[in-house]
């Protein structure tokens, strides 16, 4: 029997398990480096060189260039490290949320407020 057992999918959600970890290690390691202001500056200075230094795959590089969160998640990106990448471009969690939901930021914020009613 397979372990861990395959569990019913959660809508719009993927758990960052070993499969994603294996896929995304280089991407996540690069994004973890963005804790440092110097590293963030170095990335902005020369994004291609920085990505190459961290040995991102071609498709991971494409996802970084596109700045599309769903794409980055597919490439094995973990939300906690991707948040640091988003921070470089001054994107907050509602910018990210709106992008992933295909909504405007105002629509996304309104959706959150409606959840409270």
């Amino acid at each position, binding site marked *: 029997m397979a372990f861990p057992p395959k569990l019913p999918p959660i809508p719009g*959600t993927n758990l960052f398990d070993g499969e994603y970890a294996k896929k995304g290690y280089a991407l996540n390691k690069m994004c973890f480096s963005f*804790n440092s202001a110097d590293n963030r500056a170095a990335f902005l200075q020369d994004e291609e060189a920085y990505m190459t230094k961290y040995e991102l795959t071609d498709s991971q590089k494409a996802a970084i260039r596109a700045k599309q969160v769903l794409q980055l998640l597919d490439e094995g990106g973990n939300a906690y490290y991707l948040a640091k990448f988003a921070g470089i471009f001054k994107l907050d969690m509602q910018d990210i949320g709106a992008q992933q939901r295909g909504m405007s930021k105002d629509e996304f914020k309104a959706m959150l407020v409606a959840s409270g009613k």
Partner: protein
Amino acid sequence: MAKIIGGLGTSHIPAIGGAIHRGAQQEPYWKPFFDGFPPIREWLGKAQPDVVVMFYNDHGLNFFLDKMPTFAVGAAALYHNADEGWGIPTLPPFKGELDLSWHIINHLVENEFDVTTCQEMLVDHACTLPLKLFWPEGDCPVTVVPVCINTVQFPLPHARRVYALGRAVGEAVAAWDSSKKVAFIASGGLSHQLEGERAGFINKEFDLQFLQSLESNPEWATQYSIHELVEKTGTQGIELLAWLAMRAALSAGEGSGVRKVHSNYHIPISNTATGLLALEKF
């Protein structure tokens, strides 16, 4: 022996730090969140804990995927905060409580918990913001023992296991040869999800049930698997594990129960359904 005075739970959204820094607490967006705190601060002013054991989750500051503990206990003299990638102003370091750190570590390993011990440990917003929320003025008056629970790399520990860990930590504190007063803090939650097509997911009904269960039926949420809890509360709602640990810690030692001092629930701050709870142990 040390005295357990009670437990607290609060959300820890990074934007809170910015709001405090800007003095935005009474702005319409922030007021329903910050207004929850004064009754709890008043109680803390009377109860005067000396030490806090902080159950929280690191968000990629202290730990990376290269070495990811399931449970990590801080045993440092000082805990520094640092840049997490968004340039939020860092706070002064927090003082540790080394005797209690080692007492907890010894008790946990003796009770067959496999923990990682950290004699240097950066503490992120999850650890620092609750301290700033509960003691906003001046230096932090409590010493801290951080207990970090992995929520980054699945598989995560089962809710039953986290509850057991919390209870063991509580037992350790109750048996600590000290005259100090100790409070437990849970940091994180409540329901929210940052990533995926379900970003912005909130589950008010479950959150309110969960908050109620912490008073009346503390093990209630441990019936659910991690998978089920993520489905019900969101990928970051799983931070409720810290609340379970806090509540379990309160069940240890002398005394029969808990009394709710105050609670608050407000949607939204950033993407999060914010919860706030203070329980006095009696």
